[in-house]
């Protein structure tokens, strides 16, 4: 917050709060109001040059993708705003909800909390990269369609990527194990039973293939 004068408080005020006491309270309460929660930078020099933007090559969905990334840039942002892969969602931008989950070398990661320059030379797979080139859905995707899994589906890409990643580690999970595997993802429609139905069906299809 900008500097303010000591406020004039009215006589009728039951609890007189000075600015200093107020700010102490804010600090004590852990509340900080500022604009610094999401920050997106303009691509390609429309804005200021923030420095440190380097041309790097990423392997995304099996293809080399050249992109200018800043050193503090998150993978979620590079994917969404530079590579046009908007299937990866941002629900919190702080590793709480899992909507931005992608696979990095077959392991699920929150892409909001991975710096782009750390994934050079590694294989990144997003929801857009799961289906075959001919459009045939991945068994986990197909199972979601078959089970009418999810409602609003904002969390769906993250859940699907977590499930695909988890099944690489444990191809034959129990329902409880699958729930553990998906526990880093939040669904606010809370359609968890149907999500588990879909993921277990996907796992079974993969085992039979």
């Amino acid at each position, binding site marked *: *917050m900008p500097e303010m004068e000591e*406020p004039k408080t009215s006589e009728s*005020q*039951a*609890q007189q*709060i000075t600015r200093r006491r*107020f700010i102490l309270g*804010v600090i004590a*309460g852990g*509340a900080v*109001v*500022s*604009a*610094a929660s999401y*920050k*997106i*930078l*303009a691509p390609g020099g*429309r*804005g*200021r040059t*923030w420095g440190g933007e380097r041309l790097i090559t990423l392997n995304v969905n099996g293809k080399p993708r050249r992109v200018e990334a800043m050193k503090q840039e998150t993978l979620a942002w590079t994917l*969404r705003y530079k590579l046009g892969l908007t*299937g990866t*969602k*941002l629900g919190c931008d*702080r590793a*709480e*909800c899992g909507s931005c989950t992608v696979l990095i070398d077959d392991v699920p990661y929150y892409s909001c909390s991975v710096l782009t320059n750390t994934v050079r030379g590694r294989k990144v797979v*997003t*929801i*857009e990269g799961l289906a075959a080139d001919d459009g045939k*859905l991945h068994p986990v995707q197909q199972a979601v*369609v*078959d*089970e*009418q899994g*999810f*409602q*609003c*589906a*904002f*969390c*769906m*890409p993250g859940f699907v990527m977590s499930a695909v990643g988890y099944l690489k580690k444990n191809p034959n999970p129990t*329902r*409880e194990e699958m*729930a*553990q595997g998906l*526990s880093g*993802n*939040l*669904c*606010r*429609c*809370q*359609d968890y*039973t149907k*999500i*588990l139905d879909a993921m277990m069906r996907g796992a079974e299809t993969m085992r039979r293939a």
Partner: protein
Amino acid sequence: MAETEPVDVLKAENEKPRQFGTGYKLIGKDYPTNDLVAKVTGRAKYAEDFRAEGMLFCRLVLSPMPHARVKSIRAEKALAMPGVKAILTPAEVPGHADYINDNGTRIKADKWSELALADEPMYQGEPILAVAAVDELTCAEAIEKIEIEMEPLPFATDPLESLRPGSSNAREEGNVWVRPDSSRGPEKLAVLKWTEEDFAAEKEGRMPMGHAPDEWSYGDVDGGFKNAALVLDETFLTPDVSHQCLEPRTTMAYWQNGKLFLYTGTQSTFQTVAAIARWMHMDEDKIVFISEYTGGGFGSKITGALTLVIPALLSKKLNAPVMMRVSREEEHFIGRARPGIRARTKIGFAKDGRITAVDMFLVSDAGSYGSGGDGGSCGSIASLLYQPPAMRWRNVTMATNTPPRSAQSAPGGMQAIAIMEPILAKAARQLGVDQVALRRANCPEGKAEYGPPNREGRRAYVTSCFLKQALDLGAEQFKWRERVAQQPKRVGSKVRGLGVALSCFHGGSTGFDGLIVITPQGRVQIQSGIGNLGTEALIDVHRAAAEVLDVPWDACDIVWGDTSKHFPYTCASGGSQTVHAMTRAAHAVGLECVQRLKEVAAKTLGGQPDGYEVANLRVFRKGGGPGLSFAEAARQAIKLGGIYDGHDVNPDVNKATKQSVAALAGQGLVASAKDKYPHDGDSYSYLACFAEVETDVETGVYRIVDYLGYADVGTVLHPAALGGQILGRSTLGIGHAIGQKWVIDPQYGVTVAERFYQNKPPTILDVPVNMKWNALNIPDPETPVGARGCGEPPVGGGCASILNALSDALGDNIFQRAPVNADTILTSLEAGRPMQDPLIAHI
């Protein structure tokens, strides 16, 4: 059909459940909805996924104080920065104005209502300024350079504290909302303070009760208590819970040729246009609204969100597209929440558990804007769901300097059930009556009455209620008796508990329109103005039209998500009305289509329309003979013009539908119709909810072992989607029982729980891996398809069945407020009484 069966002779107990889909080709069957592949491949576009050439970004500046006056804003330094384009101040936001609603009624401007930016912020986190720049980091840097002078004002965050003598009020004008003539007219703010004597009950741990501006009653309340075998008088507090939609209310806007193009999430594609027009002070026909997918609403995005005007205004000012992304913290403040209600409830019971009287006293927290504290709905749902023969309801709706509330899934209903059910559970234990039997004794049935009598002395009543069957069949499926008999309840430190709860909420409205185009390609193109929340009502309701037209589902195309594609007059998806309202409209337009097809065939091939029938994408002479394919009929309709291709319009439909028909005219056989089916009672849906928990008395930790929601929602339209609704909204309710709440520092009025990790919705590990649902599938007799909504009805039962299972395991001295966490259990078990104060807000 409603008109063939006199509704007043409905014998609820004679109705039997039936298999889903009985008698239908499409209704009651599972199928993959048209939007699933786009969702699962990441191609589905939510607001933040759209881009426009030259798109700028904007960011909000939020008030750091719970109540203050912005005295000056100095932005010269910020505006001089490279890349900074503009600021938007409260003075630039259109103010309060009168508007005309759907029915042509003028609604007077409400001076108390919220605007997108405030010069007198009423809560910490309220937007006071926006900055647009080439990117968000530039916005953030600019914000640091803006000087804002603010004068702190008195504030109140705890509604009960604000009733204490000498306490501060949320606004200069007062602290309590009052209705000038008890039920009608706009609410006004007034000052209400109770006396020290009123607060005396507080010392005994009971909620004090002073003057309450709202009151109704029916029956002999005093007599009911006098004749009761048991009277319980309980204090309980329900939590304030944020909606926490996973998609924040991000918005992108641009202007083209004087038209505003706006992209954001909503619970109604159709109705959001009128809201934008109202908030922007512009004509509806200058607005194109795009909302293909919405990442959750739960009542908080019924017509989008007020803050959508910010990028719209900045975009106009700058003549460039503007994206406003909303962060998770901002979403906590502007994203709406359910009002917490503190209640003192006295219930009298006969020996068999039948309720003799209810006296309910509520103090609800409407937050910083509006008078919607849910108290009214809380009273009427309690009177419907438990059918007390006598009831008094008193209510105080308080204004506080806390984030704004709005409807959240089952507004008031959820609180009513969470308040009533623990008392019923306690009564059953004290009377030695089985929990299911006690609910059965108080269960509504048939055309049950509810609420107070109106001016003519008549009470409102519902269309139908078969909840007793749901309760009986649910108890059977859950193996209630076997579980109750199972011994021992305690093994080591683990104690099992069983809970049952009744649940209900609104389930439908009437009077909307349907609109179908049969194209010259022979496709059935259905125009859907419903918001896409993923409940699939957007698509499911149109199965009723396809069923009437007797066409295969894969011949139907659903058009949705963009108002430039022309939609009929459509309900908002709030109040669980969509399935009921829009299956009626779909049914009506399906029949209209059939009639017009027959007329086109008769005009083309001779004979009378009645001599034709429609099936399998053809209209043909009864008993065989010549006919037309839908493609041929559409081409004939275009040739015939007039009512057949939309150049004339069905006079019954709403003005908005007429405009859409005119826009689609000439594109095929264009049919529109209004839902004019008779409807006598009010539509509600019901559930019986069952839960088992296992608590560890050494740690206080508990887990939900099993859950079943058994629904009476009329005809089941789409089983998989219904299952998602029943279990999803049950879990939303469970969140209120097991952990969700606000925490606000009372000294400074600032929030300390604003992110998911501080106020976590239930995760996949918080609920059983195999929750179960079922439904009676008994059609509602007052609607053609028989289907009602089920978004909200499960919420209260989800919460209360867990609370009841906990008190079954641990006794009645554990909690007087929800949520109940491990600390609540451990400390209360040790002390032998509830250790969390039932009256202090936001702890």
